[in-house]
């Protein structure tokens, strides 16, 4: 009985012999090309493992006859990218920084490069958007301690601020009037009151009038007679709305009594001229960059 075939009448096809709830399966053979396609994919798979790295060995996997590796591909892509960027970087290197904004295409490239360098080196203090923090200047605004034209910015980045053991660093030091006993606490309170008056945070009163004299005697040398600051010393403008350490009475009292001494590393040696130039372009592009070169107008552009 078992060697007898049962044939489906409608299709003239043999049954497989399975039945599920009255549904029977016909033994319809697969097309032979399907089998060959299946064998071809197996062959392809074997070839693939020969050509590409695949089989795990004791130390490392087989290398494959093509010698391909994802790391090698990455290196090749990086090299290609570096080669693609090389002419642009060379051009940026050759242009004096103050002429960069005049060349829209080069400036855009410098800004993009500067943005990447900024993310790696500057965000820790100045924040990802350049908004700064207490004691770390906001790079978006229009208040610049040491000058906001692109050349001054580049100088600040290259040489840093108050860097020990660096001759060309931006250097100044405010006396700690309270700690060192240069002013009495009452005088300090008067000066603070005066500063808050000239920055239009409070109305003049007796204390601020007394403070004006103390200011002229102790502070005007650096901050100017009107309190407008002096970029030669990085002395802040005390009449504007921007305060690096806070413009309230407590913060100002602390500043006058103990002084501030903000330090920024010098990046020139670490990053090189071109990256510093690109960083300057980026910072300049944040919206607060000054057009005019305030203090070194007369100096001819230096050729590298």
């Amino acid at each position, binding site marked *: *009985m*078992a*060697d*007898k075939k*049962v044939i489906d009448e*409608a299709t003239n096809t*043999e*049954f*497989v*012999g*399975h*039945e599920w709830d009255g549904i*029977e399966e016909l*033994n319809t*053979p*697969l*097309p*032979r*090309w*399907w*089998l060959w396609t299946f064998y071809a994919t197996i062959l392809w798979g074997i070839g693939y493992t020969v050509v590409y790295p695949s089989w795990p060995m004791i130390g490392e996997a087989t290398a494959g006859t093509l010698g391909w590796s994802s790391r090698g591909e990455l290196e090749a892509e990086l090299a290609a990218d570096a080669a693609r960027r090389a002419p642009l970087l060379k051009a940026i290197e050759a242009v004096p920084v103050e002429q960069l904004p005049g060349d*829209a295409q080069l400036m855009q490239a410098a800004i993009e490069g500067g943005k990447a360098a900024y993310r790696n080196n500057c965000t820790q203090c100045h*924040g*990802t*958007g*350049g*908004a700064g923090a207490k004691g770390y200047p*906001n790079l*978006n*605004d*229009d*208040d610049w301690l040491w000058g906001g034209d692109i050349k001054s910015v580049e100088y600040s980045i290259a040489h840093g601020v108050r860097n020990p053991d660096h001759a060309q660093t931006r250097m100044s030091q405010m006396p700690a009037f309270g700690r060192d006993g240069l002013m009495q606490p009452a005088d300090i309170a008067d000066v603070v009151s005066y500063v808050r008056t000239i920055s239009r945070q409070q109305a003049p009163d007796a204390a601020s009038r007394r403070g004006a004299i103390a200011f002229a005697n102790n502070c005007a040398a650096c901050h100017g007679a009107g309190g407008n600051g002096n970029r030669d010393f990085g002395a802040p*403008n005390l009449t*504007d*709305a*921007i305060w690096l350490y806070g413009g309230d009475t407590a913060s100002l009292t602390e500043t006058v009594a103990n002084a501030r001494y903000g330090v920024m590393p010098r990046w020139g040696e670490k990053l090189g001229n071109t990256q510093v130039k690109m960083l300057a372009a980026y910072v300049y*592009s944040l*919206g*607060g960059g000054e*057009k005019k070169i305030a203090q070194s107008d007369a100096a001819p552009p230096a050729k590298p």
Partner: protein
Amino acid sequence: MVHLTDLIGMGKNRNLYAKREPVFPKAVDGRFRRLKWLVMAVTLVVYYVTPWLRWDRGAYAPDQAVLVDLANRRFYFGPLEIWPHEFYYVAGLLIMAGVGLFMITSVVGRAWCGYACPQTVWTDLFQHVDRLIDGDRNAQARLAKAPWRFSKIARRSAKWGIYLLIAMATGGAWIFYFADAPTLAASFLSGDAPQVAYATVAVLTGTTFVFGGFMREQVCIYMCPWPRIQTAMMDEKTLIVTYKDWRGEPRGKGRRKATLADLAAQPEALGDCIDCNQCVTVCPTGVDIRDGAQIGCITCALCIDACDQVMAKVGKPRGLIDYATLEDCASEKAGGLPKPLLKTLRHPRTFAYLGIWSAVGLAMLITVGDRSRLTISAQHQRNPAYVQLSDGHVRNDFTVKIRNMEARPRRMAVTLSGLPGGAMWAQGSSRDQAATRVETLVPANSLAKLPISVIAPGSGKAGQAFAFTVTPVSTDKDESAAAKAVFERPEGR
């Protein structure tokens, strides 16, 4: 009685894999063959000619009528230009194509398969090549069995050479939809075309050569999902190719019944089918339609043509094999007359599909006519949200994006409104040139990104809403677009 369960495990002699049965369809003439010629001509002409049609869109846009410009992310269909954000038009066209296919299927069944499917069109083309080189059915079968001598090798090389030429022309035409056709044709021949063009041509040449030249009906029967889906769209009012067994059976050569009505009187007499097998010999997929509806039948109706010729010869009415709906079959079996083809078009499902199809088309037409070719959006720089300036003002930075979707460059004016004391300047300018209006040139067919700085007095509410409005500077029509924006400033000042 053999129980099915007894058969388990007895398959040692079964053939698990079947060789393809070669199909040598015989040439046939008739009304459906002529319709097939017509459809083939129209589809091939449409396919090959479309990329070469021109459409003047002005100096700043490509002048190819149908162009899928993937590199620049623009689709051009005649007067319609589609930007990536308007992709719903492409979706709409696809919906129309889909519903259109359902509609056709619900009325005439597998008409797509039988006449318009590329697999059918190219298979048909390749079968004509077979007839041209090898001769008709019998000659083809003879040659297939013949040993590999010089004449067979020569014929096979010629045939496969023509296959390859057709396949290359097929693959070659496809790439012209994706780039300017004359330019691409020149660069393709000179070897300067992008690699993807050569790869596309190679793949399509390979698939056309193999699918059209060798696999043919195997693609329809084993690979294509569409026959499986189609069944869901067909019902008893759908036309299918039917062998009218109540008229034809019992088949055979010999004494025939005079009319259908004689069947009851002379049950031993033969039906109209003389078992000449012509319906099988002309079938491009090798189906015997007399076995009933089956997956191999693509309803190309060549068997109808063949059978009609035979019926004419033996002096019987045409239509022993014919397009008929299941309803017609029932009524004819009961003695009714064959219905005219056009009647079957009146079919509630058809009207439902037609309604959906027209609604989508109409909605697209209306929105296309009404769409704006100018848009603006403003993106607020969030890091930092605002900048305190030394004179007490506050600055916010925005990236204003202007889309000029016309094929000409236009000078645009962006104006600021709803921000008291507000002024702005674009990148490259500076605060001393701040104003409430900024002008910029937006190139044709492009999106301009304009970094804009806005300043306003530091006192005011935080999160103040205002708007940027863009207007073409010199314009012949009243056109503008506005984008809402928010001005941030320190709290409590």
